[in-house]
Structure formats: C-alpha cells, structure tokens
C-alpha cells in the first residue's frame, strides 16, 4: 500500500529500557505519505511519544532502539535508509507539548527562529528576514515587534506559534507533533490545530501528530494508529476508524469519551488498568480487560492484519466485534 509517495517508512521499531531490559515499544511499523497527517493516539504509557521521539533519536538516555529500520524520501532520491542523525534539521522538524521549556529563554524570538538557517550559513540579514516572514506565516501579530520579545513575554499560544515557525525554518517535509495543544486552552488549541492543518495543505507537509485525545486526532489526522501497551492495535482512515472501530480497545476508548452534543449519556468504563511494561499478560495485551476475549486471546498475541483497504487490526475476535456482539 505504501506507494512511492511515502515520505517516511518506519519498520519493526522496538524500544527497550537498558540492555535486554523491558520492551516499551514492540514491533511498530508506520508510514506517512506526502501531505498526509498520521495521528497516533493512546493513553499514557502506550509508547506513542517514544515512537515519535525515536524518529529523531530523541529517546531518554536509559532507553534505546533494539530493532527497526527507517527509510526517508529525499527529493529525486527515492526512499533511502536513514538514521535519526541524518534527519534532524534535514527534512524533519518537531514541535513539543510545553513551548516554554522548549524555547531558549535567553534568546529573542527573532533569533530563535533565525537560528536554524544561521547554522546553515545564511547571512544574518537574510535569516532575520526569513524569520519575520515565518512569524507572519504562523500568525504572530506584529512580527517586527514580536521578533525582539523574549519567550517569557509571550502567551502560551504565541509560544507554540513561535515553535512552529522554528520548525518550519529548515524547510522540513515531515513535521512531528508531540501533543502540541495539550497545555493550551480550548480556543487556542483550536487556533493551533487550524494553523497546523493549513500548513499541511499549503506546504504539502507530512505530519505525525501524537495525542492522548481521540477527538483532537479526529479533527486533524487523515489516518490514525491506535497504540496500546507498546503496540499498534488498530490502524485506518480516521473517520472510518471512529465510526466503525475494529478493535475492542478502540471501541471502548470511543465510548468512554464524553460527547458534546445530544443528551448526556453514561460513560463507558474499561475495567482494570493498562498493563505495566515488563509485566505483560500472555497473549493479547488487552485480553484481561476485553469483554470479547476468548481462549485464543490468552494464548497468542494477535498480529496486526489487514482487514480492508488501508485498515488493519490486531484482534482475533474482530469478526465477533463486527457482528455487533455487544460487550
């Protein structure tokens, strides 16, 4: 399915703590096409952020990648095997959740945005000019004034816009987003999501957007991967996945979310809590909490199998789920 238009392909990625230690991300394969937004959704500890960080080699020192290959599309070169160091600032940028701790507090906004191109040898004047254009592009009002401001003088929404401008300054083809709107207010989150989507369309950017909130993902992502306990358990076009989930965990996740419209309903709860890494149950990782679990589910871990165009699920019982069997 991954045509030549894939920007990045990650295959069989595994991440573990220490040498021969606990596996935190297990055999994750993903790809993103040009101009496409892939959403990764999961609860805390599901491995979604680690997966994203490993693309640029930003794993915490105690963790390391034990398996996996990465291929990246460069202009006129096709997909090439690459390591994280070859991607940093060369085609791939990243934005983070907390913009204040990601911006150098001792540098002015304009210098922060210009730094990427200055490091590539652009003249001071040209880099400053480009920074102003980028600040305007991401919707910072009065860019000339703001370029002289310090990070602490900006609001959370403006800081996030500045971080996006910094990310864009090196002309990436892939932008990695690690919960960039989680710390923001509802109306500001809406502004940033609109901006990111506009950049994807106008610049043809490919995006990987990680969030714990499926409603944010459903707003921004074309395709979604659901992660649970270190594995991708379901993948598919976002709207199809939300309307017709094919994994009991995805379904439970959707039903446990409060709805804004229509009469209030009681939320669905999932019994138990996610397994701790290192103490995974035998068989399917969701089986102990799954209302549909059968004997087979406790014996083997179901592989992620294709169940239609662009859709895959890791569930032995997905036909039962599909038949409308109510858990």
């Amino acid at each position, binding site marked *: 399915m991954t045509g030549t238009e894939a920007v990045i392909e990650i295959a069989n990625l595994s991440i573990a703590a220490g040498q021969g230690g606990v596996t935190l991300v297990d055999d994750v394969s993903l790809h993103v096409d040009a101009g496409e937004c892939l959403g990764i959704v999961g*609860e*805390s500890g599901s491995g979604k952020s680690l997966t994203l960080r490993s693309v640029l080699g930003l794993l915490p020192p105690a963790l390391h990648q034990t398996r996996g290959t990465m291929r990246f599309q460069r202009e006129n070169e096709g997909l090439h095997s690459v390591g994280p160091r070859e991607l940093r600032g060369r085609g791939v940028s990243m934005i983070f959740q907390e913009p204040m701790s990601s911006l150098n507090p001792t540098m002015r906004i304009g210098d922060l945005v210009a730094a990427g191109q200055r490091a590539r040898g652009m003249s001071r004047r040209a880099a400053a000019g480009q920074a102003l254009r980028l600040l305007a592009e991401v919707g910072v009002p009065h860019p000339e004034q703001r370029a002289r401001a310090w990070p602490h003088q900006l*609001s*959370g*929404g*403006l800081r996030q816009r500045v971080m996006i401008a910094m990310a864009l300054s090196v002309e990436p083809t892939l932008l990695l987003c690690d919960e960039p709107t989680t710390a923001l*207010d*509802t*109306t*500001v*989150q*809406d*502004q940033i*999501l*609109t901006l990111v*989507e*506009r950049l994807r369309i106008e610049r043809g950017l490919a995006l990987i957007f990680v969030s*714990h*909130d*499926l*409603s*944010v993902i*459903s*707003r921004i992502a074309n395709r979604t991967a659901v992660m649970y306990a270190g594995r991708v358990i379901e993948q598919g076009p976002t*709207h199809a996945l*939300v309307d017709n989930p094919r994994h009991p965990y995805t379904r*439970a*996740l*959707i039903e*446990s*979310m*409060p*709805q*804004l*419209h229509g009469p*209030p*309903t*009681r*939320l*669905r*709860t*999932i019994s138990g*809590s996610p397994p701790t890494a290192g103490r995974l149950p035998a068989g399917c990782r969701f089986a102990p909490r799954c209302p549909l679990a059968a004997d087979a589910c406790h014996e083997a871990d179901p592989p992620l199998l294709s169940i239609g165009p662009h859709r895959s699920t890791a569930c032995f019982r997905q036909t039962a789920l599909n038949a409308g069997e109510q858990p």
Partner: protein
Amino acid sequence: MNALIELDDIEVHFKVKNRRSVTPATLRAVDGVSLAVERSQCLGVVGESGCGKSTLAGVLVGLTTPTAGQVRYDGQDIGPRRSKELRRRIQMVFQDPVASLNPRRRVRSVLAELIDCHGLVPDTGMASALNSLMEMVNLPTRVLDARPRELSGGQRQRVAIARALAVQPDVLVADEAVSALDVSAQATVVNLLADLRADLGLTIVFISHDLGIIRTLCDRVAVMYAGRVAEEGPADAIFATPRHPYTRALLKAAPDLRRRAAEPRVPALEGEPSGALDLITGCPFQPRCPEAEAICSAAPPPYVQHGSHRTACVHASDQLGPVPG
C-alpha cells in the same frame, strides 16, 4: 428556591507589585460573581485558564478570602473564618492527587485521621467505616494499606474523593478533578461522581475546562470569562441554545469526535484572553468578540434573564424565544 450555597457578588482582587509603577496593580481574579447551587444539584463551572474558576473554588471552601461579597450556606452568611462543622460540610477534590495526598502515609491512616478528628465514628466502628468508604468509591479494601504511589492515577483520584467523603460532607467542590487522568480512568471518576450525587444526594460544584465532561455530569452550567460569569443556565439550554458569543465560540472550538470536515477552516475565536491586570471598562469579552459594537466597550453588559438562563451580553435579548418550561 432552596439554595444550599449562594455566592453574592463575590470579588477577589489581588494587589500585584508592578515594576513600572509605584502603586501596585489590581488583579481582578473574580469580579462580581453571583451563583446559587441547590441541594443535590451539580453546577458546572467552565472557562479557560485565568478566568477565575479555581479562585472561585477557593472562596467556596474558605481557602481564599473574598475582598467583597458574601458566601451563604443554607441561608446563613459564612465568612472565611468558618467553624469546624462548616469546614467539614464543604469539601474539595483537587486536580492532582499526587500533590494532595501525603506520599508517606498509607490510605488507611489518612482517612482514619480525618474521621477521628471530626469524631464521626467510634473507634470500634473505624474499620467498617473505612471499608464502606472504599466500597463507596469502588476501590478494593486492600487499597487502604497502600501508599499513594502504589496506585494508578484513577485509583489515586478515587482515594482523594474518599478523603473528601470521609467527613460526610454536603458539598463537594471538584477543581479539575479529572483533567490529569487518562480517558478510561476519567470515565470511571466521572461516573463515580454521578453515582455519589444520586446515592448520597451530594451537592457538587464541578470546575473544568472540558465541556464534554460538564455536559455529562452537570445540570446547570456557568461559563466564566475574565473573572465574570458570561452565561449561566440549565445545561440543556447552554449546550443547545448558547446565547453568549463566548459560549458559542467555546462550543465550536472544542474538538468533537463526530463533527466532520464541513466545519469552516477558520478558528472559532481569534486572540487569547486578556490579562486580568488590564483594566476593562466594558464587556470583558469585547476585544475578542466577533459581534462587538460600540456599546460593548462603554459599560459591562447587565444580565439578560430568560427563565433561569442569564447572559451577560447586550445582544442576548435579540434572540429570545418563549421561556421554556
């Protein structure tokens, strides 16, 4: 009306030192808020950061002294220096259970101390009181012998709720009590609060930035903006026919699982809330309001009352239908 808790024109102003001037500036955290909560009702308070919703929670439980206004409990004026009995009746659940539970103490000792302090249960009945408390919040009794860090986030927040319930309160003030939890744990705690209200007749003030949870849990909603109540009314009315432009923008901006591409690709609202330090003469929302007119910057808009639904917007009366019910 049989209001259990009433806030009457509450004002909380803080003096803040300002490097640029000698006279301290005034931060208007809460600026003239009146609210009433009936017995066994759940009032949702929603708003963005800095709107004063947490300060309001502090006023309710007596942690913050209002600079003006009155708090009434069961018709009686209660000041910030409250009797032990009153403090017992109004309890609070905080956002972060890690910060609000002593990490060195087991759950049993935390809860027993409270019950003991208020002399609610004789020593011989303590064990069974603790067990029934655990049952009330759907936790196994073995949690009593755990320390907070041995529990999951959802379990910890249920312990925090048990801590509040231990002293048999009438009112629970929950300040962003589920915001730090994962979706599935969040659902458990929201359902628990709904059950407690139904079973114990608990009165709940639920403060949150999350409209979906407010919708699920609350029967009345107050929308706050810049220290004031922009709109207040029955939850059904607020969500179906919001009258304040801010409420409408908030509903439009909230991501929704079911809303699809038809939505316009422009943000629901531009700008960010102005700082509480800025002096606003008119409607506090006017600088961001898409419907603002000259009159909006002249004076703060009075409430337009429509049944039990009130809106602080000069345009709210333009669209009134018949009073429902």
